[in-house]
């Protein structure tokens, strides 16, 4: 089956991201495919490369990136949710005249059309939120 994951967590330290990550791994382990992981709302904060994780805590962003590169995941971050929270890629930083970009490499900013596409193209769209 084809799955897509919608993440709508209120902070990246919450367990929700962890649940979504474990679920995504389990989907892949069972031979299903992931069409897209879509980060929406506050979840976009997990995609900043400025996050400094205390040494005794897990860096969820790195875990997503590791899984994404191993499984060629399409990880899309809602552009309007991201920009309003200060998560910018190079193009957006330039467009809005900001001094730097901070979107972690491996995530892509795009519109909600990517979520609609995920819903259409996937057998199951699972929401993880809090």
């Amino acid at each position, binding site marked *: 089956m084809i799955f897509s994951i919608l993440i709508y967590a209120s902070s990246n330290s919450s367990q929700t991201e962890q649940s979504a990550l474990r679920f995504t791994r389990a989907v892949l382990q069972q031979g299903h495919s992931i069409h897209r992981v879509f980060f*929406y709302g506050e979840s976009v904060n997990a995609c900043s490369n400025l996050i400094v994780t205390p040494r005794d805590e897990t860096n969820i962003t790195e875990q997503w990136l590791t899984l994404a590169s191993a499984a060629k995941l399409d990880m899309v971050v809602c552009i309007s949710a991201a920009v309003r929270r200060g998560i910018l890629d190079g193009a957006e930083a330039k467009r809005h005249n900001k001094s730097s970009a901070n979107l972690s490499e491996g995530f892509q900013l795009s519109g909600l059309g990517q979520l609609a596409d995920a819903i*259409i193209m996937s057998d199951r769209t699972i929401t993880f939120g809090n």
Partner: protein
Amino acid sequence: MPLLCPTGLSPLATEAMKKNILLIFRNPPFANSSNSDTLDIALACSAFELPVSLLFLSDGILQLLNHQQAELLAQKDLRKRLNALAMYDIEDYYVIDQDLIRYQLSVEDLSLACKVITQQQLAALIRQFDTVINL
């Protein structure tokens, strides 16, 4: 990046596009961004020709109250966008009778022409959809 636009999809995907979607609004105005975020999903899905229905559940019906003055709080009034939904062919809205009763409201107090269903009909309504998003 995969296709952005529904044109040029495979026949299988065209078949898949017959899916419908229910979006649930469960929060009062100004609580958080979930109502606005849900509305944005509705518009995006509609642009991809997914049939969209909206359910205003529990405190979600408060989002529909007439006479709100969001500008007093320097907030955006979501109703302007809600009232434009018909232009996007989103015209299927539901509320639950018990939620109206709880706040002593009638459908005339709401800014959208909602169908009123009973608590007992809620489960059957949800059954009709292929995808439900409940932020």
